[in-house]
C-alpha cells in the first residue's frame, strides 16, 4: 500500500516536472547576465577560461562558501568518526595487481592533478577538479594498502592554512583596494600560465585545500572500524 502511494507520488512528480520542462525554452536562454560576463571577462579578469573567471572572480564568494562546506563536512566527519583504536585489525591488503597499480598511478595522478590545478584559468579545470584528482591519488594508495596511515595532523594543518590563505588574499584586497576578493596583481598576457592576477593563487589554494581535505576525509572513513570493539 505504501509502495503504491509512493509510486503514484513519483509518477505525479514526473508528470508535473515533464509538463514544466515542456514549457521551458531550450537553447534560447535569456542569458541576461551571461552575455555581459562573456563580453567583460577578458578586461575584468584576464583569464582565458571564463568559467573559472566566474568561479573565482565574479562569484568568488560562492566559492568561499563551497570551500567552507567541504571543510564543514570533513570536520563533521572527523567529529562523528572519532579515533581508531591503536591495536585494531586492518582490512586485508590488496593483491599484487592492486598494489603495483597503485604505486604506478600515484605519481601520475599527482602530476595530472597539479597540472589541472595550475592551468585552471587557461583550460577547463581549476582548484576543485584538480584537488579531487589529488585526493584520488592518495586514496588509491589507501585502498590498495589499508595499513597505510595518512598523517591526519598534517592534513588538518594544510587544509586550515590553505583555506585561511584564500580568505587572507580576499581580505588583502579588502584592505588594500576596498573590495573583498577583488582581483589584484594585474592581468598579464591572456593565455599565459602567469596571468589573470591573483586567480592562479586562489586556484592553487583551493586545490591544496580540497586535495588534502578529501584525502583526509576518505582515509578517515576507510580507517574507521565497522564493528564495536
Amino acid at each position, binding site marked *: 500500500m505504501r509502495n503504491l502511494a509512493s509510486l503514484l507520488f513519483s509518477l505525479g512528480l514526473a508528470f508535473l516536472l515533464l509538463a514544466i520542462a515542456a514549457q521551458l525554452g531550450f537553447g534560447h536562454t535569456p542569458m541576461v547576465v551571461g552575455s555581459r560576463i562573456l563580453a567583460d571577462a577578458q578586461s575584468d579578469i584576464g583569464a582565458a577560461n571564463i568559467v573559472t573567471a566566474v568561479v573565482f572572480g565574479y562569484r568568488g564568494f560562492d566559492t568561499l*562558501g563551497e570551500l567552507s562546506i567541504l571543510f564543514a563536512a570533513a570536520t563533521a566527519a572527523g567529529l562523528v568518526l572519532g579515533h581508531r583504536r591503536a591495536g585494531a585489525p586492518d582490512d586485508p591488503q590488496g593483491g599484487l595487481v592492486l598494489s603495483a597499480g597503485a604505486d604506478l598511478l600515484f605519481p601520475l595522478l599527482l602530476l595530472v592533478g597539479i597540472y589541472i590545478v595550475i592551468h585552471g584559468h587557461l583550460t577547463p579545470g581549476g582548484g576543485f577538479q584538480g584537488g579531487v584528482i589529488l585526493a584520488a591519488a592518495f586514496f588509491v594508495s589507501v585502498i590498495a594498502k589499508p595499513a597505510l596511515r595518512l598523517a591526519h595532523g598534517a592534513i588538518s594543518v594544510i587544509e586550515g*592554512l590553505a583555506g585561511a590563505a584564500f580568505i587572507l588574499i580576499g581580505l588583502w584586497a579588502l584592505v588594500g583596494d576596498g573590495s573583498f*576578493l577583488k582581483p589584484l596583481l594585474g592581468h598579464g598576457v591572456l593565455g599565459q600560465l602567469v596571468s589573470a592576477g591573483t586567480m592562479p593563487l586562489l586556484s592553487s589554494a583551493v586545490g591544496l585545500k580540497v586535495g588534502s581535505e578529501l584525502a583526509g576525509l576518505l582515509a578517515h572513513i576507510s580507517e574507521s572500524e565497522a564493528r564495536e570493539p
Partner: protein
Amino acid sequence: MSVTWAMNPTLPIVLPLLGAFLLQPIARVSAALARAVGPAILIACLWVLTETWLAQGGRPFAVAIGGFAAPLGIVLYVDRIALLFAAAVPTFALLFWPWAGTGQEATRESALLLLLVSSVTGLALSGDLFNIYVFYELAAVASFGLVAIHATGRAYVATIRYLLQSAFGSLLALVGIAILYTKTGTLNLAHLAQLAPSTLHDPLGLASFALMLIGFGVKGELFPVNTWVPEVYATAPARIAALLAGLVSKLAVLVVVRLLVLVFNQPEAAQLMLVLGAVGMVSGELSAWRAKDFPRMLAFSSIGQLGMVFIAFSLPGTTGVLAGLAVAFHHLVVKSGYFALAARWGGSLESLSGLGRRSKLAGAIYVLFALSLIGVPPLPGFWTKLIVLVALAQHGSLELVAMAAILVVTAIEANYLFRLAVVLYRKDKAAPAGPEARAPGLGVGLVAPLLALVLLAATIAIVPVTEGLRKVAAQTVDVASYVRTVFPPVSLPLAQKD
C-alpha cells in the same frame, strides 16, 4: 557616505570562516588561545554590525563583492531587517556557546559553530539567490555535525534521517533555481524583482516558488518536511537544539520572505505558504499535546509556532511582515529560554514532578514563558498573537480559517503547558525519575533568567518595540527602494563599490 573597510558587511561572514579554518592549527599551538578565538570573533562581528547600524542609521545600502557591480557579481544588501537578524546571530551564539569543553572534540564543535554562525549571517545579508543557497547548505552541513555530538546510536540515526530529508529538500530548491534561471537568466534578487512581473507570474514561476519553499522550508520546519525535528531535538544537546529551533529556523523563514516579497509577489504563492503553515501549526501543536518528554514537547511546539510565523508572513503588506517579525522574535526568545531549561530537564514529563517547588526560579521562568507563549496580556506573546489575528481578520475566507486554527491551537497550547505546570508544582515527594533523567539542579544557569529578563523588558517597552518593528517591516516590503539601492539611477553618483 562611504563604508570604511572596518564596517564592511562581508566581515561578519568572513571572520568566523577564517576562525573556523585556523582553529585546529591554533589548537595545536595553544589550547587556551583556541578556546578564546571563537567568542572573540563573535564579539568582533557584533561590534562591526553595531558600528554599521550606528553609522547608517537604518538607511539601506548594498555592497558589491569583488567590486563587480550587480548583477554580474554578488551583492550584500544591508537594510534594517538584515541587520536585525544578523545582529541576533552572534548574540545567541554567544549565549549558547560551549564554554566548558576541552580537547579535539571541543575544537571541532567550535569550528562547526563558527561555520554555522557565518552561514546564517550570510543568509541574512546576501542579495543573490545562489549565494543564499550556498550559505543554506553550509548551515545544513554544519548542523549535521553538531546534532551528532552526543555520539549515541539514536543521535546518529536521527542525524542520518535529518541529512537525507534536508539533502532532498535542497535538491528540490536547486531544481527550483534552475527553472528560475531558465526563465529569467539572472540570480540577483533586485534584478529578479525587476524581471519578475514579466517572466515569473505564471504557473512555471509558481512551481519554482513551491520547490524553493519546500527546499528552504526544511530548516524552517515547514510542513511536510519537518519530520526530522522531534528526533533531532530529542537526541542533540539542548544548546544545539536551541540554536536550530530558535535562530536558524528564523533565518530560513527570512529567506522565504525575501523571495515572496521581492520576486514572487503573487497571491497564489502567499496562499500556498498560508496553507502549509496552518497545517504545520495544527499538526505540530497536536503532537506536542501528546508528547511525553520535555525536549520533544518543545520540538513539536516549535513546529507549531513556526507554522504561525509562516501564516503571518504570508499576509501582504507591512502588517504581514510586522506580524511575522513579532511572532518570530517572540519565539526566538521564548524557545531559546525553554531549551536552556531543557538542558537540565531531559527526562520524561513525569520525572519533573515537584521540580517547581524545589527550584523556584526555574519554575517561575517556565510559567512566565508559558504565559507569554499562550498569549496572556500584558506579556509580548499576547500582542504578537493579537497583531496576527487582526491582520488575518482583514482578508479573505482562507485567512479566517487560519484565524480559527490559531484560536484552537492556543487552547491546545494552554492545555499542555499548564498540564506540565501542574506536574511541576505537585506536592508529592516521591518523584518517579527515569534512569537517565538529570537530577534537578539547584540553579538554571544564566541563559534562561537572562532571556526571561529580555521578555520582561519587552513587556515594559512594548510600544517602542512595536514601532521599531513596524519601521523594519515597512522598509522590507518597499521593493522599489530595494531595486533603487542595488541599481542606483544613472544620474546620481555611482553607488559605493565597497
